[in-house]
């Protein structure tokens, strides 16, 4: 069996999540690789979530919102688009293949489109293999870590 | 080139019996249900469209109304009650008038009173003529042989003269029909060989009416065929065997057998048709134009008087036979002179010709080179 990527999807509640539900109601089969996380608006998707997803083992991240002009929150999706453009540049700087990150618009009526999107993205990521940073970043540590000492995470206090 | 629409065309067709054309909204059920409609000729919808849009020249040049036998399926199926069958019928009347160069046909169709008047006048004229002629020739008490009131050979000569006139009139109209439908069509090239090869279509359709059999109901075809063959038989008997028909007193079964059968056929079918139209019992009898009645009544009259004079003659009532003979001719002459070239009877020529022309047109269209075809706007009506 070939590599099965895991894709984390951030879907807005009003258009894309409903569209994904519609794909279900209409029994439009698609690849089982997407793990959906519902947000109220694609504008809620903080780039932090995307880097967290990749860092936690996602092979791809899909962000879906309402079509431009159709946003339930008037224009949250334009903000997503702006962030996505800049985030994409950061991902490129990390040497991440740009096919792993995608922003697209799925309306509540586009079940079919959603299903095709998932298939398409899965198929594009499959040949890339598991997520990895660019060659320079891939270099893991070659530290001689002393046993018994675990690095302390920085904590915040209020 | 754009064709000028004539918004008054529907009004004109209504004078020819068209009704409810405006109700049509082009769903195409009529064409779908029509057993005659095919790939090359799609009707009645297309003709309905031409009519609605007032595309006079398109309508004049189409053969489609003639390819319809009026089985009435389309009218039955029409969801809008637009009566496409009757519209096709009225288009045939209109086309008859357009083919007729004299304008008489148009006059008759648009004014049945004029037709009736013409028939009556011609009948009276014929009656007067035959009486005067009879008196000059022989004795009212003699029906056949020497001294006959209306000698067979003279009547025969009259028949042939009349036939000549009819052929001339109808022939000219047929040529006009050819010109409108095939001759002037630049989109096709018809070779003389094609004309020759397809010529068999005329007698075939004339004699068998075979397309009518495609209709779901077979009875109209049977009635139509019987009427047609009876009439043809009678025509042949009169044109070629008049003498033997009239000669008595013995019965010459070779001749009279046909004659009786034909007379029976004519009377039977005409009564059937009249009854049907009165009761509106079948789809194609639902609507009757005045000219339909004139035609049927005339035909029944002629048949009945024909039978009557024969019976009277055989029964020895010579005076009565001769008088009825005159009445018979008073029916025959207007029927032939007015109905054949100018009215309903003309379809006996136009319909087989239309079958012939359509077969030619269909084959000629297939021969058109591809680039020519692209220039020709293909009919888009389904």
């Amino acid at each position, binding site marked *: 069996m070939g590599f099965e990527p895991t894709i984390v999807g951030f879907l807005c509640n009003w258009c894309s999540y409903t569209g994904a539900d519609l794909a279900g109601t209409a029994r439009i089969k698609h690849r089982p690789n997407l793990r959906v996380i519902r947000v109220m608006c694609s504008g809620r998707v903080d780039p932090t979530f995307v880097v967290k997803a990749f860092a936690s083992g996602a092979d791809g991240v899909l962000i879906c919102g309402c079509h431009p002009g159709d946003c339930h929150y008037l224009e949250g999706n334009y903000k997503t688009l702006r962030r996505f453009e800049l985030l994409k540049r950061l991902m490129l*700087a990390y040497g991440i293949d740009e096919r792993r990150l995608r922003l697209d618009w799925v309306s509540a009526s586009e079940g079919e489109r959603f299903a095709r999107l998932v298939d398409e993205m899965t198929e594009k990521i499959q040949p890339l293999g598991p997520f990895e940073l660019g060659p320079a970043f*891939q270099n893991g540590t070659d530290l001689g870590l002393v046993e018994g000492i675990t690095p302390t995470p920085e904590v915040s206090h209020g | 080139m754009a064709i000028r629409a004539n918004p008054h065309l529907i009004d004109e067709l209504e004078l020819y019996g068209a009704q409810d054309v405006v109700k049509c909204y082009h769903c195409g059920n009529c064409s779908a249900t029509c057993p005659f409609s095919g790939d090359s000729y799609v009707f009645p919808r297309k003709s309905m469209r031409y009519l609605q849009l007032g595309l006079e020249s398109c309508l004049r040049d189409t053969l489609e109304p003639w390819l319809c036998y009026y089985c009435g399926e389309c009218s039955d199926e029409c969801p809008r009650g637009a009566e496409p069958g009757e519209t096709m019928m009225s288009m045939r009347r209109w086309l008859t008038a357009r083919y007729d160069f004299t304008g008489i046909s148009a006059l008759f169709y648009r004014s049945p009173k004029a037709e009736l008047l013409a028939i009556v006048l011609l009948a009276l004229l014929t009656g007067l003529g035959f009486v005067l002629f009879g008196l000059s020739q022989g004795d009212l008490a003699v029906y056949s042989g020497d001294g006959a009131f209306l000698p067979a050979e003279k009547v025969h000569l009259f028949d042939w003269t009349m036939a000549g006139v009819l052929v001339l009139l109808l022939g000219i109209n047929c040529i006009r029909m050819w010109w409108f439908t095939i001759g002037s069509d630049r989109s096709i090239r018809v070779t003389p060989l094609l004309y020759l090869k397809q010529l068999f279509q005329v007698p075939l359709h004339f004699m068998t009416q075979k397309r009518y059999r495609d209709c779901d109901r077979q009875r109209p075809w049977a009635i139509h065929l019987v009427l047609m063959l009876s009439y043809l038989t009678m025509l042949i008997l009169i044109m070629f065997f008049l003498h033997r028909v009239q000669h008595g007193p013995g019965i010459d079964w070779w001749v009279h057998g046909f004659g009786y059968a034909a007379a029976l056929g004519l009377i039977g079918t005409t009564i059937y048709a009249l009854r049907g139209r009165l009761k509106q019992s079948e789809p194609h009898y639902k609507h009757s134009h005045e000219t339909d009645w004139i035609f049927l009544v005339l035909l029944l009259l002629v048949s009945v008087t024909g039978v009557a004079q024969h019976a009277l003659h055989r029964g020895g009532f010579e005076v009565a036979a001769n008088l009825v003979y005159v009445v018979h001719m008073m029916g025959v002459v207007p029927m032939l002179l007015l109905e054949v070239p100018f009215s309903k009877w003309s379809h006996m020529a136009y319909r087989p010709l239309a079958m012939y022309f359509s077969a030619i047109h269909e084959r000629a269209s297939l021969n058109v080179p591809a680039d020519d075809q692209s220039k020709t706007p293909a009919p888009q009506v389904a």
Partner: protein
Amino acid sequence: MADPKLQVALYWGAACGGCDVAVLDTDEFILTVAEVADIRFWPIAVDGKYADLEAMDDGELDLTLFNGAIRNSENQYVAELLRRKSKVMVAFGSCAHLGGIPGLANDASREEIFHRAYLDNPSLEEGNVTLPVTEKKVASCTLEIPRFYRRVHKLADVVAVDYFVPGCPPAPTQVKAVLLAVVQGALPPIGSVVGAGERTLCDECERRKEEKKVKRFQRPWQTIQDPDRCLLEQGIICAGSVTRSGCGVRCPDSGMPCRGCYGPAPNVHDQGAKMISAVASIVDSRDPDEIATIIGEIPDVMGFAYRFGLPASTLQQSVRSL
């Protein structure tokens, strides 16, 4: 521990020396420190050998201020040594805290760095192709130099760190406050960031802030700035909004945008990602092409997102082993 004086060590890893200077910049306060503390080890200021350090008992030191990142095996060795010897380990300054400026080298491989430093450098003498090796046998013995790691780490990646003092370098007033807290034994819970505020720079920045809408981003020299208005609103990428307060707003006050050395605000998970979210949000356009153009003109995305924190970034941290 009979000696009531605090036993203190200061050390530099991969660093520029600025942090040590920052300690000296506390001026006469350093003398006060000296009254209450013994400086046991401070390579930049006092003589001392690793052997002295190795000879100490574990936990003999009360406090180590470790500045600089972990770039090579020597940095790691000393960091581990100091950790063992010291009761309190403080990551002092941006490099120890987040990886700092040396951490930006993480987007190049060791080979690329060596190539650049030892082979392609324009200041090299022609024909000089000397490359460092960790071991070299000479006539009588084997010489060793520290191993250059594949990437730069923050201090907490190699040892347990008790406190973090951010800044490149930490502001002298904050250094003073931290030292005072140590002296007075008033330290917050382990793992805290000390010597910094709990909000972002904007809180202390005196510049006028209005609603933010930006059509074009630019570098400071590309525009004549309004000295009283928020730099970001003028299209100058200032990291102040995503950077912990406490530095005293020294850069923006001098007309230069903040570059983020104090690290992210307490609740922010990833400084660079947050910066991207905030800065992109204020792009004043709804046209996809125009948005792409405006964003495309931003120079050096990696540099502004993680100027001081690439080794600490979420993605870099996710790569743990070969």
